[in-house]
C-alpha cells in the first residue's frame, strides 16, 4: 500500500507530469502521421532520456507508445490511410463514416473507445501483474530460457506473413544481438576487431535503421498528397445517443480481446484490433452493414488496440518478456537505464512500477483532452505534405544516432541496418521478429548457459518440470489456435467479404 502511494506521489510530481504530457503529445503526433511509427519515435527520443531519471524516462517513452494508438485512427478515418498498423482496421468503417459526413463522430468515438480500452487495460494490468509475478517468482534460469525461447518463437510465427520467414528474421536478430564481448568470458565476438562493436550494437541504431530509415523510403513513394474535405468543428464531433448505445458493448468486447492478445509475446496490437473487428462482425445482427461506416466497426477495434497496448506491459514487467515489438524496445530502454524488469525488479522497485502504471492513466487523461478539444490541431498536422516532412525525420534520426557516442561509425552502422530493413521489406520478411531477437537474444543465451551448467549439460532436462511443461502446453495451444485462424481466413479475406 505504501508503495502504491509512493508511486502515485512520484508520478504526479510536476516534472513527471510534464514528461508524460510530452510523451503522449509526441505519441499522438507520430500516430497521426502515417509513415512514422511509435517505434522509430521512441528510439529517436531514447538518447535524450539518458540524462533523465529512469522512472521519468520510461514514463515519457511509454507515453509515446500508447499515445500513438490514439492518434493512429485520425488518418484512418480522414484519409483511409492507417497512422499505425493497428489502426488499419479502423479504415474499414471509419473512412466510410467520414464520407457519409460523420468524420467528427468517428473521431470522437474512436477517442472514447481508446480511453475506455486504455483505462480498463490499465486496471487489468494492475490486477494481473501480481498473479504473473507469483508465477515468475518460481522461475529459475531453466524456466527463463524456455519462456524466452517459446515467447520468441511465438512472436516470430504469430505475426502476419510467412512463419518461416519470421523465424529466419528472428534467428538473424539473435545473431546481431550477440555481437560484442561475451558476458562470461569477455571474448569479443563478431566485432571485426572494431572497438565500436565491443559493447554490442546499440538498440537505438538497430531500431532506427530497421524501422526509421527503411520505412521512410516506403512512405515517400506511397504517400500521395492528403485530401481532407471536412472541416472538423466541435459541433460535428458530438455523437448521437444512439452512437453511444451501440458502441458500449463493442468497446467492452474489444477490451476483452485486447487484454487477451496484448500479453501474448509478439501477437501485437494489429492482431488485437483485427480480432476485435472479426468478433464484432460475428456477433452483430447485421454483419452485412460492416464496412459501410457503422460505429460498432470502429469502437471495438479501437478499444482492443489500446487495451492491448496497456496489457502488453504485464509480461514485460513481471517476466521481462515483452508482449509487442514496441514494448521490446521499452524493455531495451529500461535495460539501458540499468533496470532489468522481472521479479527482482518488482520486489525492489515496486514504487517505480506504481509510478509508471499510474502515469499511464494520467497519460490517457491527457490523450482524451488532446484528441477531443484539440482534434483540429492534429487534422491540420495531417495537411503538411509528406515531402516536407520526411527530410526533417531523416535529420532527427541522424542526430539521434550521432548523439549516442558522437561517432560517425554509428552512422555507418545505421546505414547498414537501414539497408537490411529496406531489403527485408522488399523481400517480404517482417523486421519485427528481428528486433525482438536482437533485444532478447543475449538474455536467452545467458539463461541457457546458466541452466545448462545447473543441468550438467543435459539439454532435454531443460524442458522438464511443471512450469516448463505448462508453458509448452500453452504454447502448443496458442500456436494451434492462431494457425487454425490463419488457415480459416487470411488477414484480408474476412475484411473484404
Amino acid at each position: 500500500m505504501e508503495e502504491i502511494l509512493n508511486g502515485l506521489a512520484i508520478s504526479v510530481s510536476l516534472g513527471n507530469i510534464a514528461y508524460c504530457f510530452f510523451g503522449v503529445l509526441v505519441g499522438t503526433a507520430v500516430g497521426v502521421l502515417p509513415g512514422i511509427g511509435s517505434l522509430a519515435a521512441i528510439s529517436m527520443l531514447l538518447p535524450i532520456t539518458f540524462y533523465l531519471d529512469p522512472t521519468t524516462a520510461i514514463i515519457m517513452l511509454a507515453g509515446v507508445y500508447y499515445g500513438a494508438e490514439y492518434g493512429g485512427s485520425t488518418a484512418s478515418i480522414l484519409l483511409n490511410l492507417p497512422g499505425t498498423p493497428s489502426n488499419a482496421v479502423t479504415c474499414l468503417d471509419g473512412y466510410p463514416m467520414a464520407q457519409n459526413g460523420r468524420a467528427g463522430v468517428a473521431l470522437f468515438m474512436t477517442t472514447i473507445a481508446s480511453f475506455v480500452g486504455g483505462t480498463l487495460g490499465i486496471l487489468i494490468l494492475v490486477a494481473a501483474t501480481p498473479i504473473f509475478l507469483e508465477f515468475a517468482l518460481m522461475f529459475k534460469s531453466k524456466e527463463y530460457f524456455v519462456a524466452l525461447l517459446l515467447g520468441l518463437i511465438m512472436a516470430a510465427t504469430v505475426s502476419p506473413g510467412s512463419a518461416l520467414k519470421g523465424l529466419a528474421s528472428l534467428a538473424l536478430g539473435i545473431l546481431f544481438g550477440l555481437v560484442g564481448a561475451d558476458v562470461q568470458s569477455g571474448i569479443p565476438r563478431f566485432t571485426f576487431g572494431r572497438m565500436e562493436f565491443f559493447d554490442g550494437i546499440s538498440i537505438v541504431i538497430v531500431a532506427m535503421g530497421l524501422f526509421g530509415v527503411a520505412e521512410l523510403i516506403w512512405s515517400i513513394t506511397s504517400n500521395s498528397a492528403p485530401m481532407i474535405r471536412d472541416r472538423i468543428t466541435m459541433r460535428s464531433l458530438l455523437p448521437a445517443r444512439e452512437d453511444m448505445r451501440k458502441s458500449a458493448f463493442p468497446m467492452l468486447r474489444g477490451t476483452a480481446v485486447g487484454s487477451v492478445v496484448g500479453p501474448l509475446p509478439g501477437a501485437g496490437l494489429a492482431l488485437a484490433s483485427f480480432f476485435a473487428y472479426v468478433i464484432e462482425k460475428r456477433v452483430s445482427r447485421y454483419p452485412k452493414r460492416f464496412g459501410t461506416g457503422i460505429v460498432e466497426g470502429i469502437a471495438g477495434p479501437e478499444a482492443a488496440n489500446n487495451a492491448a497496448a496497456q496489457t502488453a506491459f504485464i509480461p514485460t514487467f513481471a517476466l521481462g518478456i515483452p508482449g509487442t515489438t514496441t514494448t521490446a524496445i521499452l524493455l531495451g530502454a529500461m535495460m539501458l537505464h540499468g533496470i532489468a524488469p522481472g521479479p527482482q525488479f518488482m520486489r525492489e522497485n515496486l514504487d517505480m512500477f506504481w509510478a509508471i502504471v499510474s502515469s499511464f492513466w494520467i497519460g490517457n487523461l491527457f490523450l482524451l483532452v488532446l484528441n477531443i478539444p484539440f482534434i483540429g490541431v492534429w487534422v491540420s498536422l495531417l495537411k503538411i505534405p509528406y515531402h516536407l516532412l520526411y527530410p526533417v525525420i531523416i535529420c532527427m534520426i541522424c542526430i539521434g544516432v550521432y548523439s549516442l557516442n558522437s561517432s560517425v561509425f554509428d552512422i555507418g552502422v545505421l546505414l547498414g541496418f537501414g539497408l537490411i530493413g529496406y531489403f527485408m521489406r522488399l523481400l517480404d520478411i517482417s523486421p519485427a521478429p528481428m528486433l525482438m531477437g536482437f533485444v532478447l537474444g543475449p538474455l536467452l543465451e545467458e539463461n541457457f548457459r546458466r541452466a545448462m551448467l545447473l543441468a550438467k549439460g543435459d539439454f532435454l532436462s531443460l524442458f522438464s518440470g511443471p512450469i516448463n511443461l505448462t508453458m509448452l502446453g500453452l504454447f502448443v495451444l496458442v500456436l494451434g489456435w492462431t494457425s487454425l485462424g490463419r488457415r480459416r481466413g487470411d488477414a484480408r479475406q474476412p475484411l473484404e467479404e
Partner: protein
Amino acid sequence: MISVDLRDLVGGIAVAMVGGAFFLAARNLPEAPAGQIGPGFVPAAVGLVALGLGLIIALRAFRTSARFPDVELRPVFAVFAAVATFGLLVKSTGLAPALIGTTTIAAMGSARSRPLAVAGLAIAVAIGCWLIFIVALGLPVQALRNPF
C-alpha cells in the same frame, strides 16, 4: 522457364549466407572450460538454424512464382545518400551545414520537392535543431566548424 518466387529465393539465400557466416565465425571462438557452454555455442547453433531456414525458404520458392517487386530507386538513393552526407559532414563542418546537406539531398527523393521550399526547409531545420539539440539539450557537437 522454371517458375520461382524470386523474392523468396533471394531472401532465403541471403538468410542462409548470413547464418552460415555466423556459424563459421562462431566455430573459431575459443573452447569453453569443461562443463560450461562456450562463447561460440549459441551463435553457432543459431547460425546453423538460420542457415537451415534460409535454405528451406529458398527451396520452397520453387513451389510458387512471383516477380521481383518494382523498385523506385530515386527515394532509396536519396535517403541513404542523405544519411551518408550527415556522417561525412558532421565531424568536419559541424551540425548546421551537415543538416542543410542532409535535408537537401533527402528532399531530392520526392518528385514533389521544389528548390525554394527545400532551401527554406533546410535552413529552418538547421536553425531548429541547433536551438533544440545544442542550445537547449547541450549536445556536445559544434554547430559550425571550419573544415580546413
